[in-house]
């Protein structure tokens, strides 16, 4: 059956490929495809749908047994006594110490210190931004939570950089190491944040250790990747120069490779910080305190006002951290090429600036401790926004609920439900076969289709078929809507510089915000359920789609467009016959990123009633870790299939004519 499904349309398609097929053939081919698929689905719906129960392997029980074993043995078994338990104590101890240290600096001292450091590193504007940012976090009445989040961030980022940068250097200098690390890093970046938590919960149960380790692991890849990239990008010429003057390998590293790789390493630091923030927030689901917890609890209570306050604090923190680290690295790059005499003075004054910043910080701490005598920001000074927000939300719900309910209804009726029913209505092997067929279409090699089939079948085997198909239907709907929105906006932005300028800050802000935060406004407007998750996901995934469409079109050589215009093309013809085809690799890369981002949010949406695998993971984290683990594995399997197929779309299509000719 799969043979026929895969075989006949392919046979029809292949002869057309090598030669540029005339229009009629293309139509005929497409019609054959549609008919073939339609027939297959119609047939499939008549067969028994879903995955047969009797084949299901219960992995959850083994995982739970494992956890029970962990719990009974954690006082006695050497792995725990000498490995994991001391590690846990160390992590908890250091975390408490950092929180205590930061608290003792008092709110005033800490805000002043952070702002002065930001100012000295990235310029006074960034210093002001930091002061306003941290100040507003205090004003929102979330100071203790902010300090906890900050403390975990500091620990995780320091650890991730301490591991990631040296590893990146080694990978950058030794291609063998790079080749070994690359698939591991690819894998790590495919896994949605949530899935990192479950296995750690099995070992460490919930708490700070799990949050910290998950954060470190999650934030590690960009530090390694960008350091390695920076080192590898140092030109052959610069290395030859150093060698020709007799550098040792150490001299080569410190005098040439590291200084030249610095901009990339700084970018890696920035990305590591942003990834860490995203994870620290999600770590609320394993019982970590901090700002994420505020949002998490408020969302559970459906207290939109409180969730919004927490969300704002997180966004502010993200924006401050992002802008300050970016400003720091940009300034570092710019300091070159300033006229020479001024630079001499500038180096001097930079030292002076740092000295002044440190002095100011010490002074502020003293003022905080001795004059103000307030460790925490006084609650009486804080502004509570939750009351007015909740009132506004109530008003909004009253007035726009018709619209949002209509949207929700139609999305369920015309998108989510039919798709889910379809996926569940046909036999499992038809879904897996469809994935394999898609994989074959994009790769034309047997490896990927086999992988796709196995992964999809695996989801059924572990007993998560229905839940996974629910998640899959949400992903598909969100991706399709996101792409449909992103491409026209991207085209518009490529055509009109004003649109691009207007979009830029919006997209920047959107890309800075952790995924978790997207749920808050959506819940305010759409309530809970599957639809808000899908909407949060599609909005979250818009920026890369827009940006990569824009870039792809703008990268089309001017002369090519001029040639089309010279032959009298209309704007539409230029777009459809020149710009979009040439921008295709870039747009497909955008689709790949969209898919991965959608997947991660759809899973987090389990928090707001999205159901699916995300809900299983969240339940698992607190009640049934075994089942959570199984759901995490399913997320991973789906992520692998979706990522590999969409990645291949971008890669192989460009080379398709050559591949076709050789068939």
């Amino acid at each position, binding site marked *: 059956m799969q043979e026929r499904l895969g075989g006949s349309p392919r046979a029809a398609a292949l002869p057309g490929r090598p030669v540029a097929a005339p229009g009629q053939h293309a139509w005929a081919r497409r019609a054959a495809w549609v008919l073939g698929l339609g027939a297959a689905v119609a047939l499939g719906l008549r067969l028994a749908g879903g995955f047969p129960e009797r084949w299901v392997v219960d992995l959850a029980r083994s995982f739970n047994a494992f956890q029970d074993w962990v719990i009974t043995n954690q006082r006695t078994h050497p792995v725990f006594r000498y490995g994991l338990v001391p590690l846990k104590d160390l992590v908890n101890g250091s975390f408490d110490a950092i929180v205590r240290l930061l608290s003792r600096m008092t709110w005033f001292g800490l805000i002043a210190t952070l702002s002065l450091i930001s100012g000295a590193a990235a310029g006074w504007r960034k210093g002001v931004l930091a002061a306003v940012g941290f100040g507003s976090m205090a004003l929102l009445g979330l100071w203790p939570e902010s300090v906890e989040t900050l403390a975990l961030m500091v620990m995780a980022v320091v650890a991730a950089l301490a591991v990631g940068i040296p590893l990146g250097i080694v990978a950058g200098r030794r291609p063998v190491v790079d080749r070994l690390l690359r698939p591991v890093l690819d894998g790590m970046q495919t896994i949605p944040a949530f899935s990192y938590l479950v296995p750690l919960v099995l070992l460490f149960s919930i708490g700070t250790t799990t949050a910290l380790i998950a954060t470190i692991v999650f934030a590690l890849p960009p530090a390694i990747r960008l350091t390695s990239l920076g080192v590898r990008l140092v030109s052959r010429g610069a290395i030859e120069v150093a060698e020709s003057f007799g550098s040792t390998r150490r001299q080569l590293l410190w*005098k040439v490779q590291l200084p030249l790789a610095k901009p990339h390493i700084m970018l890696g630091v920035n990305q590591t910080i942003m990834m860490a923030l995203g994870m620290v927030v999600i770590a609320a689901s394993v019982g970590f305190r901090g700002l994420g917890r505020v949002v998490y609890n408020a969302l559970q209570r459906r207290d939109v006002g409180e969730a919004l306050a927490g969300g704002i604090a997180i966004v502010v923190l993200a924006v401050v951290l992002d802008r300050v680290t970016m400003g720091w690295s940009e300034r570092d790059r710019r300091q*070159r090429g300033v006229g*020479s005499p001024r630079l001499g003075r500038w180096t001097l004054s930079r030292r002076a600036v740092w000295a002044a910043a440190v002095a100011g910080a010490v002074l502020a701490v003293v003022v905080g401790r001795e004059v103000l005598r307030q460790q925490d920001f006084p609650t009486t000074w804080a502004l509570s926004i939750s009351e007015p927000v909740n009132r506004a939300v109530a008003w909004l719900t009253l007035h726009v609920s018709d619209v949002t309910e209509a949207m929700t209804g139609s999305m369920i009726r015309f998108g989510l439900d039919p798709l889910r029913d379809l996926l569940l209505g046909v036999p499992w092997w038809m879904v897996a076969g469809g994935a394999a067929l898609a994989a074959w279409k994009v790769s034309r090699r047997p490896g990927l289709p086999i992988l796709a089939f196995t992964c999809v079948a695996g989801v059924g085997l572990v007993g998560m078929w229905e839940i996974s198909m629910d998640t899959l239907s949400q992903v598909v709907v969100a991706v399709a809507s996101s792409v449909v929105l992103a491409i026209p906006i991207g085209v518009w932005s490529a055509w009109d510089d004003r649109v691009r300028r207007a979009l830029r800050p919006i997209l920047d802000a959107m890309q800075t915000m952790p995924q978790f935060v997207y749920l808050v406004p959506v819940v305010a407007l759409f309530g809970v359920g599957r639809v808000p998750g899908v909407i949060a996901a599609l909005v979250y995934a818009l920026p890369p789609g827009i940006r990569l469409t824009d870039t792809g079109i703008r990268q089309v050589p001017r002369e090519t467009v001029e040639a089309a215009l010279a032959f009298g093309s209309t704007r539409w013809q230029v777009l459809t016959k020149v710009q979009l085809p040439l921008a295709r690799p870039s747009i497909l890369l955008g689709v790949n990123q969209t898919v991965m981002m959608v997947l991660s949010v759809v899973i987090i949406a389990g928090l707001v009633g999205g159901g699916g695998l995300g809900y299983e993971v969240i339940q698992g984290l607190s009640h049934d870790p075994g089942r959570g683990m199984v759901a995490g594995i399913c997320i991973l399997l789906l992520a692998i299939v979706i990522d590999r197929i969409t990645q291949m779309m971008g890669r192989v299509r460009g080379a398709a004519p050559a591949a076709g000719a050789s068939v």
Partner: protein
Amino acid sequence: MTVSCRDVWKVYGPRPERIVGSPQADLPRSELLARTGCVAAVRGVSFDVAPGEVFVVMGLSGSGKSTLVRMLNRLHEPTAGTILIDGEDIGALDADRLRELRRRRVSMVFQHFGLLPHRRIVDNVAFGLEIQGVDRTERLRRAHEVLEVVGLEGWADAFPEELSGGMQQRVGLARALATDPEIMLFDEPFSALDPLIRRDMQDEVLRLQRELRKTMIFITHDLMEALKLGDRIAVMKDGRFVQVGTPEEVVIRPADAYVADFTRDVPRSHVLRARSVMQPPNGAHAFAGDVSPETLLVDLLPILARSEAPLRVVEDGRAIGVVDRAAVLAAMVEDAG
């Protein structure tokens, strides 16, 4: 001899040593690649460079000249052959001694300058000394001195990107001079520069050579540059030297059709010198002036145009010949060969 190469080979590819000296090495490049997966970049090159000599290797891109110069300081390892510097086999040096050689005795000027963008000009010039471990004050003092020699003393604190291409290559030159090496390797140093700036830089090299008498090995694809700078020129093609000789020899007596084709458009008056066209002293006594035997014909022409009288060729205060208008004209129109 300062630099001596004996039957030096460089072959890239799997098991490159089997190609060396085998009949396969004479195959055309594409055929060798198809049959063995190897590319023979340098094939059995031998030459000697005397102290203080400017030895130019000229060839088109892909002729193997850049590979050749990189083997002289072992940035590329030779596949076979011996390279002697001051009689010492550099192929036998261990890593430490090789670094010493690179630090103190051989320096290199690169085609794309190879300045380090994160360092000020003065720190770029001091780079070689820094690698040697010279302390900061001393190396900066030395760098400032050398910057003065190349005429960039005002730019010490600038960064490379603030300088024009010509100035950047002056920095490259200063960096190579700063370690006071006996041998300087130039890998097409001026090919990325505009023609006018290129001429300035060539004059700069000639001036430095007059003042400092370094041994220079200079790679170029520009025949006019080779003729201008080289005491001797090696013409390289497909990894072999097809001719080694003085500029005059290369132009007047090209070794084969390839070299002849190359030199066909060279104005002979720019290459031939008084020595090669003079006749023995013939008793004449009215002369338009005295010239050195190394004077180019192009410089004789204005004098001869003004006067019917011949020129006397004088070396070490002794008249060794005469040059008249007819001899110069005859030499300029004579066919090569």
